[in-house]
């Protein structure tokens, strides 16, 4: 089953649905160690995306993803707008129209590289990168359950001390809670996996 318009719509709807279903949770995670707005930010971004839903899903997958990324950058603000926007833009640029699992892994690498450059962050700094990294790895292991890997990676950020993101101001006090952006990255990955179904 190729990633046709129906599939693209299903993909987008699944992402938006999980973000809005978890918005309050994301905000609460961010409130514990950041500034308590991550759910609101993501919701604002994807509401803007949904306002051009049909125009976006009409485009081929790479362009559609880049348009989602640009929309996030231009409407979210804060760290997450740029970070998630950059991830979508870089991944979209790297994807073919009908990606294989290997293509997806390469796209995830591209997203990781772009986010690292933009955010001057590295793995272990307690950000959404700590989900993208493990997911890229899982994509290369045919036996791996990507959704499970994403969720576990997000959980694992709880043990990290933040070096990037607002939680970094807490220094040692940042150990203990999950990273909000990591959690939303994982939710997006899970949504993509389930919308892609057999292809995932």
């Amino acid at each position, binding site marked *: 089953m190729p990633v046709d318009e129906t599939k693209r719509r299903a993909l987008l709807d699944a992402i938006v649905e999980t973000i809005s279903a978890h918005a309050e949770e994301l905000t609460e995670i961010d409130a514990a160690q950041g500034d308590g*707005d991550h759910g609101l*930010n993501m919701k604002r971004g994807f509401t803007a995306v949904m306002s051009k839903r049909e125009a976006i899903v009409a485009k081929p997958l790479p362009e559609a993803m880049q348009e989602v990324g640009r929309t996030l950058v231009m409407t979210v*603000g804060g*760290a997450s*707008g*740029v970070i998630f926007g950059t991830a979508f833009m870089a991944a979209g640029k790297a994807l073919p129209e009908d990606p294989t699992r290997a293509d997806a892994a390469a796209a995830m690498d591209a997203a990781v590289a772009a986010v690292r450059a*933009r955010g001057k962050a590295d793995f272990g700094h307690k950000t959404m990168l700590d989900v993208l990294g493990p997911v890229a790895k899982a994509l290369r292991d045919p036996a791996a359950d990507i959704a499970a890997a994403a969720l576990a990676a997000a959980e694992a950020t709880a043990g990290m001390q933040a070096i990037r993101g607002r939680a970094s*101001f*807490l220094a040692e006090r940042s150990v203990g809670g999950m990273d909000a952006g990591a959690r939303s990255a994982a939710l997006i990955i899970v949504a993509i996996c389930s919308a892609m179904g057999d292809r995932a």
Partner: protein
Amino acid sequence: MKKLINVPESVLAESLDGFAAAHSDLVTLGEERKFVRRARLTPGKVALVSGGGSGHEPLHAGFVGHGMLDAACPGQVFTSPTPDQMMAAAEAVDGGAGILFIVKNYEGDVMNFDMAREMETGRTTEAVLVDDDVAVEVSTFSNGRRGVAGTVVVEKIVGAAAERGDDLAACRALGERVNKATRSMGVALTSCTVPAAGKPTFQLADDEIEIGVGIHGEPGRRRAKHSNADTLAQDMVTAILDDLAGSGSAPGSALLLVNGFGGTPLMELYVMYHAARAQMEARGVTVVRSLVGNYVTSLDMAGCSLTVTALDTEMAALWDATVHTPALRWGI
């Protein structure tokens, strides 16, 4: 949450519309409310553009006007604005001598301004990063210090330099010099409540305070039992002056800004000014310029920050230069 608003979604728009209407002699609101700019621009001068999350009023839009900013980009509450806002503002106020972005050191702000600068084509831009908050320990790993109330001092002094005709490089260098000479520290007695969140960002017991709090209610150095104005002022002045001394900027003469966070009465700010000034004088620092009031707020948070700038003669003269903005005005 009780607030003088209609719905959280429209606070920013209505507040900006009100602001622009109340100060229509000074400012104009850009299309889609992307920025606030001076009503009258001066061609040929370096344009100063700042911006950041809303909720810190009067920062930044309140400082748009003669002798200070040319434009300000208001983000959502406590959320940096987006690159298209910065690009639109730069386009609107470009006078041909380049754009200087004044950016508070938060990852969100820095990344969004970076993106805007990268996407800008054909316009010369520079940026000054403000990171005056001594509450955050600097280490090689960290994001560095937050930009807080010292931003007003940077914007005022660089604004005066741009107004007298300094070029882009000079404005940027001056901005960095002022930033280096400026340190701040804050204390919160209560949390703020973000309209969209609907409840306080954090919780403090009836006898607890957060020392070193950020202007978004971020945690600071430590929670402590509330003591009194003198003790707080001593803690804060000590942290600030030690830090300035440590970086070779120990002031002889200084500007002292006592900044309210939005929920603290002026009466208390003057008590803190009194206490802080005494502490500074005890350490041999002469307070030669003062500013007391709500300038960089955190919505309705109770508490205040102290900012000290080690003033040299040029900086003092530029501080005194004419300024005419909604929130800061003298000489005109």
